[in-house]
């Protein structure tokens, strides 16, 4: 149900970005890029915030007429941005959280690979297969 998922590194360059194939990817890339400002704003607002699951999840960054953008940041300042279609009214906050959690898990699996250099583009087909599930189901089992 998510139409676009992006993993952005600490330095605000994308490590992985994938959009639902039907949509215009460029538009989503732009939305993700602009959402980074909101993410940074929320991060700075937290200040000395504790490392907490809730605070990792930034929530709705900003809504547009068609889409909603959700943000999530890890402890290492790696950001996950998810663009969701607004027509999916059934998506609750908990579902978004779980989607981010799964995304985080997949990202952790990628990190565990010693052959992966942090900062490289994530090219693992295997580890990010769950991301595809996110697109299809919204909540991979």
């Amino acid at each position, binding site marked *: 149900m998510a139409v676009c998922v992006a993993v952005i590194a600490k330095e605000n360059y994308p490590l992985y970005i994938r959009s639902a194939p039907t949509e215009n990817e460029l538009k989503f890339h732009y939305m993700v890029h602009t959402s980074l400002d909101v993410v940074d704003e929320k991060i700075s607002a937290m200040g000395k915030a504790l490392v907490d*699951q809730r605070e990792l999840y930034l929530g709705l960054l900003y809504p547009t007429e068609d889409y909603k953008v959700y943000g999530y940041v890890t402890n290492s300042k790696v950001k996950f941005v998810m663009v969701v279609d607004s027509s999916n009214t059934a998506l609750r906050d908990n579902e978004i959280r*779980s989607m981010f*959690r799964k995304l985080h*898990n997949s990202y*952790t*699996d990628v990190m*565990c*690979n*010693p*052959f*992966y250099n942090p900062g490289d583009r994530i*090219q*693992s*087909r*295997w*580890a990010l297969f769950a991301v595809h599930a996110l697109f299809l189901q919204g909540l991979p089992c």
Partner: protein
Amino acid sequence: FCFIMELCGATRLGYFGRSQFYIALKLVAVAQSGFPLRVESINTVKDLPLPRFVASKNEQESRHAASYSSDSENQGSYSGVIPPPPGRGQVKKGSISHDTVQPRTTADPQEPASPVVSPQQSPPTSPHTWRKHNRHPSGGNSERPLAGPGPFWSPFGEAQSGGSAGDAVWSGHSPPPPQENWVSFADTPPTSTLLTMHPASAQDQTTVRTVASATTANEIRRQSSSYDDPWKITDEQRQYYVNQFKTIQPDLNGFIPGSAAKEFFTKSKLPILELSHIWELSDFDKDGALTLDEFCAAFHLVVARKNGYDLPEKLPESLMPKLIDLEDSADVGDQPGEVGYSGSPAEAPPSKSPSMPSLNQTWPELNQSSEDTAIVHPVPIRMTPSKIHMQEMELKRTGSDHTNPTSPLLVKPSDLSEENKINSSVKFASGNTVADGYSSSDSFTSDPEQIGSNVTRQRSHSGTSPDNTAPPPPPPRPQPSHSRSSSLDMNRTFTVTTGQQQAGVVAHPPAVPPRPQPSQAPGPVVHRPVDADGLITHTSTSPQQIPEQPNFADFSQFEVFAASNVNEEQDDEAEKHPEVLLVEKASDPASSLRVAKTDSKIEEKTATSAPANVSKGTTPLAPPPKPVRRRLKSEDELRPEVDEHTQKTGVLAAVLASQPSIPRSIGKDKKAIQASIRRNKETNTVLARLNSELQQQLKDVLEERISLEVQLEQLRPFSHL
């Protein structure tokens, strides 16, 4: 046709039958008609040794000829040919090959022919790959046959044709894959598509080249590997891997850290992406380290890759880490996963509510999620203590606040099984409303019977003691440990009695304890009044015995009175005793309401009867009460609700008769007779009350039994965990 023959022959020289077949397949791929046959032959090839190759080859060759001619026509527009053959191939092989791959393969034709062909040739290693190759090669191979000898020979170790990277890939793949990797073959089409679509294709091509260079070595290795299971590790390979493992990590049960593994596998000169993919496949538990099995799987994948096999998308079963490792790693993985994820199941229980309610709610989750093994254990453990507490609480009925929660517990062990001490205690201790609330909260184990029984019990009872305002859990817990034993005994006796005659259920428990206490009559008798206020303090059978003993004591006293021909005293005592008996008996069954009622009565009467009991003889009272009791009970059992008066009178008469003094007194004085009549009436009423109470107790016990059985059933699955 001759060309194909030469090719086949040439391939034969350089390759084993499989590879020959493989090449032949490539040739055949050109021809559309050859597809189905190839599939068959491929299948046979896969399962059979070389000889069939020849036969199939011949067929293929014939087809090659047919297709070749057609291809020659299509050479100019092989791009157009490609789509149709893949389409056909797909139609033919759709059922066999991967559907996902098919669309990709169809997409491939759009790509330049050579890259398309090259990936196609990688698949040929396995039947599926062959099919796919057939699809693609239709267009690509049309070129290939022309340039064929070159590419064909390239795999042999000759310089790869520089015509296209795809060719290189193709040539590189053709020799190695031939055999086994049906898995990789499934992978190769995707890899091929990836090659065309992703920049990583260059890497594959480079690997192909490396593979080609190592073709001979690969062939040897391939032969060593099982034909049917391409990913199976032979003993020699395994030994080699283990030795390599030892060089890095001397402990075979230990882990190889990721960094060391990275260095080791980088030596294989595979591209980083490949190695990354291999790592993802082999690190089954995703812990960043390799166990021996994981290492062997990774090493095997590296070897296969170097030989030209394409990596599978999914770890083959033969390479899966052993179950033991999986379990260990899974447990480890699950736990950290849970911790790291702060998994919803784990989170839910703690977040839901403290202590008991959370446990109750964790039950459903525990049942649902397999990872919550950690949570499962505490729950069952908790159950038994709660039961014990329940029992204790039951034992502790007597007028005090504690007794209220305990007494109901005895009556309703099923409540214990409902996981909530709170629920049970609440139900018992507090009013019906509270209990109802808890019963409703028992979503997991909420048994309608139990809840209904609890509700009915509560309703049946006049009302629980209002003293228990404290939350349910605290009351049971602070109870002394010794009371548990007594409570257990109570339950046992009750459960035992439940198994017995229904009528005698209630009667037996009271009857049993008195038996072993022939000499304890004085003590218990004395204690009874005291215990009436605090029955809990007794150990083991004492609680049961104690309440009953007062009854017995009452009767005994009654008998003693009768024997002593003390009319008035007996009357008074009889009055007191029956009431006490009733009260105490009521307390036995552990109905909170009853206890409340009886407790008050007991308190009143124990105070009055205490002195009387004490004054009366103790030792002689014990034996008489027992038989009297038994008689009463037996009669009650036999005639539960009929002619109670007559029965009771009869019993009383029997009781009286047991003591010669009684009839003498009757026969002697009319007053004595009248007094005895009064006593009989009183005893009748007492017995009637007893009867009704016992009936209630029986019902309660039965309900408890049902609930216990339900709980047992519920707990059974957990016992397996």
